[in-house]
């Protein structure tokens, strides 16, 4: 499928999905749906750096929360429409991603990952100490009650996140089939060999980090309007870090399909579970699933599916051989 065709298909699917969603009478559908869509963006963004390029980012919360807090800061300064806030959130997180990458990507991959973990802690400390955005006490955001055409503001937020999901998936797929995607894969498989083959590894890694961070920042920008009260503890919630890793890993890291499946599956399960079990238990289950998949099924659901298909094909072939050669064997055996 050519890139343009895929984009068109994605937009059509997205539009159809939105049209169908508008038929749902229950308000809660949009609230829960927003979270799942948000995770689609986060998981896809993470996978560009993680699955495609092989660099693990433990600090999703940092990039995500930066987007959210850019919105908070701007909210206190001047009114801006949400799409603009999304762009700004993306820009801020992208710059931070670039800066962090520039400092740490020349070290071994493991150092980069540890740095991202530390980054999350540092960002949280900085924001907690920044009185302008409320510090540890948090900030209140007034959400407009109604939006022209759509009615409830929540529906508008849902739409924004849906657009971001389509954007993220479209970008991910475009990368996969492109020269850039090949470069990323080479870096993931063997960075030294990639360098020797002419791949400018540092430049590509920076591109991946910046893009991934920017998308995460864009996903975070609408958050203050969604929650209406934002404090560092919730903005930097551990759930974002673990989910953005678990979803691509469980879904499958090699293509855009994996994070989508992982986000839909885990995201929906968690939304259903939050009403029944505590959020801590919820997260524990995600953590256990993560470790289980890493150990048992590292290629995720997509990988399991592919292996299943391959084994069916092989069984079909074997049956064919048996039928064809079985008679001959029976005639030759000494009995």
């Amino acid at each position, binding site marked *: 499928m050519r890139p343009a065709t895929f984009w068109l298909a994605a937009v059509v699917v997205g539009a159809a999905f939105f049209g169908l969603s508008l038929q749902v009478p229950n308000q809660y559908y949009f609230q829960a749906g927003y979270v799942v869509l948000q995770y689609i963006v986060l998981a896809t963004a993470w996978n560009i750096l993680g699955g495609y390029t092989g660099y693990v980012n433990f600090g999703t919360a940092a990039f995500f929360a930066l987007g959210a807090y850019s919105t908070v800061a701007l909210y206190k300064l001047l009114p801006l429409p949400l799409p603009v806030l999304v762009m700004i959130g993306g820009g801020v997180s992208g710059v931070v991603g670039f800066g962090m990458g520039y400092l740490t990507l020349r070290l071994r991959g493991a150092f980069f990952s540890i740095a991202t973990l530390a980054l999350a802690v540092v960002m949280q400390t900085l924001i907690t100490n920044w009185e302008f955005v409320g510090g540890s006490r948090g900030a209140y955001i007034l959400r407009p009650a109604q939006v022209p055409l759509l009615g409830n503001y929540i529906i508008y937020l849902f739409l924004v996140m849906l657009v971001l999901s389509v954007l993220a998936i479209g970008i991910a797929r475009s990368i996969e089939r492109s*020269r850039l995607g*090949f*470069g990323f*894969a*080479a870096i*993931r*498989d*063997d960075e*030294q*060999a*990639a*360098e*020797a*083959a*002419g*791949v*400018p*590894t*540092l430049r590509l890694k920076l591109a991946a980090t910046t893009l991934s961070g920017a998308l995460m920042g864009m996903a975070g920008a609408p958050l203050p309007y969604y929650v209406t009260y934002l404090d560092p503890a919730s903005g930097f919630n551990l759930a974002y870090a673990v989910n953005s890793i678990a979803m691509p890993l469980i879904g499958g890291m*090699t293509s855009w399909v994996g994070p989508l499946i992982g986000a839909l599956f885990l995201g929906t399960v968690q939304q259903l579970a939050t009403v029944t079990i505590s959020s801590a238990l919820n997260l524990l289950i995600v953590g256990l699933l993560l470790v289980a998949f890493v150990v048992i099924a590292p290629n995720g659901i997509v990988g399991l599916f592919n292996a299943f298909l391959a084994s069916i094909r092989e069984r079909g072939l074997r049956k064919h051989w048996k039928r064809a050669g079985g008679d001959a064997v029976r005639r030759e055996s000494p009995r």
Partner: protein
Amino acid sequence: MTAALLEVRDLGKRFGGFTALDTINLSLRAGERLGLIGPNGSGKSTLVNCLSGTLRHDSGSVRFDGRVMDGLPAHQRTRLGMARSFQLPKPFGSLSLADNIRIPLLYTVNARRHGRHLAPAELDGRCGELLQLVGLADKAGRRPRDLTQVEMRKLELARAMAAEPKLLIADEAMAGLSHSEVDDILALLSALNERGITVILIEHIMRAVMSFSERLIVLVAGRKIADGPPQEVTRNPDVVRAYIGE
């Protein structure tokens, strides 16, 4: 006298307190066939790594094709025309063989052809040709994990060749190959050399080195102890002592 393609002056490399390379001097003319031999641990691979940019040398300088290489990252050196194969094959495991070849085509060959990138059909064509050259054409769609050790070495060489180098450094590409396979690789390298590509052959297989090299360099404990025509070098008492011992 033609200018040297590769000029290495007083090259030094240390790992902590250990001196891996000590004041290496060598110079290579375009089109030459240079053999590099030495006991294990003598610094051959370190030298290759320093030349290609995988490692940064501590002292001295490297000039290639008239340009100073010091400080340039490996990918830029490859783009300028220096390609190397790795002693232990480092294939791109998740990509097919054809795509393994595609990477240097996309990132080295295309990078040199500003605005006149190879069309997809041409790219596919070249992948096929290169795999054909090393006898791996029928496995083009397979993954490296399906290959034997020997086939991986051939892939390694094909990938280095794909970068259309002026200088190809083959780091122990023949280890473990059978007699006829060694001849195949030698033929390949000779054909490349006839097209004008300078080759540095690093090997332990003496008959390959002797038959291929115009000039032979011997490295022992990080120092160059001999540099000259193969017949002379092998008769050099220092060289004999290094291999046989006192």
